[in-house]
């Protein structure tokens, strides 16, 4: 198995609900808490596994805002695991999830240097590195109904911009969607072979703005009057 996420950039509305749901679940999850520093102070900051950036692509009038959620890509060739000197970082053979053993981590930050996606964040209060677990404590929980055995972020997304599944199975929903929509990994040139895939924004016709109907005589007088009277 190779478990991971598909994120639809065409659909994501940038509401940050995935990040909130992630924080809510994982704060009391296997590697919680996710410490906050000055949550109500002047410089609020803290540990998050999921962060959403907002980009603009192309230029007016073809410009488009792209909301960009990012979490751990659970890479096939995860350098963060290779460089870890303590053996705290590991990649599970059975499902490809990259995890950090909180009892072994010494907080040297080296794995975060090796990660190009910014997926790893140090928790200052525990002194250990933390990252997305793909809700490993949810997806295998036999107590939950089958449809809820998915990562928190996927369950909560109101726009259904996130999918979870097995990329090793060519007939899984994630594999099919990636095939059909031309899903791609981020920064493939670094050869980390990230598992998570992104679906590109669809091309949409440009809404014309120059072809508004011209006003008649009344409009011309109004414009003339506006020129005369300085506001």
């Amino acid at each position, binding site marked *: 198995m190779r478990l991971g996420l598909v994120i639809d950039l065409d659909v994501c509305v940038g509401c940050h609900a995935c990040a909130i749901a992630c924080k809510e679940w994982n704060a009391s999850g296997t590697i919680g808490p996710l410490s906050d520093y000055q949550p109500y102070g002047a410089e609020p900051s803290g540990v998050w596994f999921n962060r959403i950036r*907002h*980009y603009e692509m*192309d230029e007016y009038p073809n410009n488009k805002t792209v909301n*960009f959620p990012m979490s751990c890509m659970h890479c096939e060739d995860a350098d963060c695991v290779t460089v870890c*000197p303590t*053996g705290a970082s590991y990649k599970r053979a059975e499902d490809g999830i990259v995890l950090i053993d909180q009892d072994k981590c010494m907080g040297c930050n080296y794995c975060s240097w090796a990660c*190009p996606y910014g997926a790893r964040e140090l928790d200052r209060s525990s002194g250990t590195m933390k990252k997305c677990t793909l809700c490993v404590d949810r997806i295998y929980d036999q107590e939950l109904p089958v449809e809820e055995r998915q990562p928190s972020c996927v369950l909560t997304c109101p726009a259904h911009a996130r999918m979870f599944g097995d990329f090793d199975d060519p007939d899984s929903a994630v594999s099919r969607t990636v095939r059909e929509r031309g899903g791609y990994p981020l920064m493939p040139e670094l050869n980390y072979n990230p598992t998570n895939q992104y679906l590109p924004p669809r091309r949409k016709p440009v809404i014309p703005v120059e072809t508004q109907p011209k006003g008649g005589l009344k409009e011309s007088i109004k414009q003339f009057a506006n020129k005369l009277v300085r506001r």
Partner: protein
Amino acid sequence: MHPAFSVIFFTVASGAGFGLFSLLFIADTFKLGGGFTPVQIVIGGIVALGLIAFGLLSSTFHLANPKNAWRAFSRFRTSWLSREGVFAVVFMPLALIYLASIWFEAPLWLRETFGLLSAVLAWITVFSTGMIYACLKTIRQWNTPLVPANYLALGYASGSLLLLLGAVIAGLDTTPYIAMSALIVSIAAVLKAIYYFWIRSPGLTPTINTATGLTRAKVKLLDTGHTHGTFLTQEFGFQIARQKAGLLKVVVFGLGFALPGLMLVWVFNAQGGQAAAVVAACAGIAGAAVERWLFFAEARHVVNLYHGAQRC
């Protein structure tokens, strides 16, 4: 990259210590300039081991959870950080046996064997320190063979200047020590110049387009999605003005290479002798520290592409 002072002190001090120890072995084997007395070698060796030990100790200060530091020796097969720790720890007993065999006048083969072993291990350890940075694909300014070469050259340059100071204090013939220092300092200067030339060109790096996969149009960041800094911006967001970096490069070359070179001439002409050697050693090590700070400050991690950078 955020320049952490504990790491800068560690790499500069341990580099100088390992350099001094290996060169001390060479000076002892070939009896350079008449050769040090056993007591002088042991003192020199203890200075070198002290620099290494203080460096290693200081490196644990940047750990957020130092109680697990002992586990860092466990991933020798994959991690350069682990390898560096293992080599440094293996080096210590070998170096101590070498110093003991000098102190107790052990047979020559024993002394030479352990001297050579510890000198080679010193070399490997400094190489591993460089590889910690050079193996990271995420930072173009580090991902080059020039990085371990620079670490070795600068460590041995600092070590050779310290050894010269020792030779001056011991009243030996300084000519071979001056020649050795001049050679190593020049090599270090040339390697550093190549490195600075190398990182100046843009190179084939990830861009904001490959980072987002939106490769068909211009892409710019509108919002990072957080109100204040995060771990990522604190660790990787450090930026240095181009002008300041240029000025510091002049300091690196002036303080680290030119001034020690000038002082070598003074020592050679027996002008001021000891004072000139002290200035040479201090300037060399200070130059190496500035170089190390700049090494971190100029490194641009690709995660900055998710915080507004167009390329790294």
